[in-house]
């Protein structure tokens, strides 16, 4: 079933891709092929392979239970917040929080998670910023 849905999604993606390829505005100075032809070929391959996947599906993959999916979704949300808040809070604090969260969710006890999170944040800061001179996000406190 997953493959059928996935294949169908592939076909829809191909149609969408082809439509937006056709909508590309051509400039008056164009080569013999133009900017549309290759994307349309790609869309054709995408559509055909999507259809084959849908018609001849593989055995069903093992999907995780709902709880595990929520776990991944929560991690994605944390990462998105991390990406957005990095310039606001500065590298060290944002990274410490995100690393603590991930360590905790992978099964560390809370105290261990905080120690590991803060430790890896400071470790990365020292190695990459102080030693290697990489420019990291500077928050209001300069680190």
């Amino acid at each position: 079933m997953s493959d059928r849905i996935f294949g169908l999604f592939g076909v829809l993606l191909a149609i969408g891709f082809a439509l937006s390829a056709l909508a590309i505005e051509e400039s008056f100075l164009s080569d013999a092929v133009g900017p549309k032809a290759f994307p349309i070929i790609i869309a054709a391959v995408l559509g055909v392979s999507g259809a084959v996947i849908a018609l001849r599906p593989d055995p069903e993959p093992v999907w995780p239970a709902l709880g595990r999916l929520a776990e991944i979704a929560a991690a994605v949300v944390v990462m998105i917040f991390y990406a957005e808040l990095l310039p606001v809070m500065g590298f060290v604090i944002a990274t410490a929080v995100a690393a603590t969260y991930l360590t905790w969710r992978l099964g560390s006890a809370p105290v261990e998670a905080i120690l590991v999170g803060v430790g890896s944040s400071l470790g990365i800061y020292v190695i990459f910023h102080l030693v290697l001179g990489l420019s990291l996000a500077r928050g209001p406190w300069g680190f």
Partner: protein
Amino acid sequence: MEILSSLGDGFAIALTWQNLFLALLGCFLGTIMGALPGLGPSNGVAILIPLAFTMGLGATPSLILLTSVYYGAMYGGRISSILLNIPGDEPAMMTCLDGHPMAKKGMAGEALSLSGIASFVGAFLATWGLILLAPQLVKIALLFGPAEYFALFALAFMTLGGVSSTNQAKSAFAAALGLGLAMIGVDTQTGVPRFTFGEVHLYDGLDFLVAIVGLFALSEVFIFLEHRHGSSDAEGRKLSIGRLYPPASMIKACTPTMLRTSLLGFIAGVLPGAGASLGSFISYSMEKRLVDSENTFGTGDPRGVAAPEAGNNAAAGGALVPMLALGVPGSGTTAVLLAVLLSLNITPGPLLFTQNPDVVWGLIAALFIANFMLLAMNIPMVGLFTRILMVPSRILMPIVAMVSFVGIYGISGSSFDLLVMIGFGVMGWGLRKLDVPLVPIILGTLLGNSMENNLRRAITIDNGDWWTLIDSSLSIALWAIAIIGFVLPLLIGRKVKSRMHERRDEEGAISD
């Protein structure tokens, strides 16, 4: 003679303190990444690329660092195969078959050092193979025009589909997806924006480094979260190594095996689409057919340890040949290495050898040096790396995630790229669940634009005649190989592939 003098120049480039230090660092990190299940050569190299850039390394030093990681991972993968029966990376899965039984018999030290020697032999011979074969391939490649290049790219995608997945349709889907992603951005020839949907960030196109790090490194973190696999695989087990050096008789008995499988692995590596995993698989299978008269393979036969290790290291070297000489990588990690070259504005292919001989020969010399460093690290110092296996993944994986973020942020300094990377991470997780190979996606995003440019150039030269694509015997030959490479696995490949893939576990299962 010309080759030897070029090689001499290469050593002059490689033997600077900076490059030696980078090679040593790369070997060390590579062995660790290979040894840890969940980090393999492709995602290991992927998270290090942004760092190599932001550190401001030039082309040769970056390549030395990253190919040392690549070679190192090929060595390191065997450690957890032998001690834990869990392949540290995909190419090391065949080493489990005889390596772990040897360790159970109390011969872990012998298995580790023997496989270290086999790795060395494989990689050493393959580096010579690279020196001898690449310049010949360059001579052929100089005959290529745009139409032939277009056919060559098609060949790479079609044969990659033949080995990297059990389902051809999914490989084709992955390749088309990658090519489609490469189309995003302003068209280089006419200047019109394509698939940008008005988003200014997309006008430059997607940065393929962001895609690579997201697909390879972040998706791994999600896989670990899904299984809540937080403890170390070595937890609760005693990793005793015992006697470290194998008896001379064992090495002697394995020498013919190592030489044969080095050759076979090298050929497997050079073939488009086949990487180190296939190299170790066919090396093991062939040796089993050839010398296993008493049915000792699978019960701890030293030859069964030497064969896949020599094979996968030789294939790793072989896979560099098409990447450097033609600009078409044959495996996951070489695709990632191609990304490095492209980001440094160096176009691999025949011109690389004439325009940047320092890069090529410096790299080759560094490979020789790295190989000796790896031999030293992997036999006397192997105890150090076995201790690293004790690091639990609940500590390791957050560090992997954070280093990925640091690297990408270091390149662009934009949160938008981080969001795109997270998107690719989620996509990579979903595609891996559905058994869609990730390597064709990466290859598509890397090669998409030059594939299209070659197509358009070929047709424009011939005033819009599409038949020009199959106008020369060379391009007809390339198309024929491509079609055979795609169709043949449909007919006979299913059995081989399902046997090759049956042993893999989901974590760390990016085909290479």
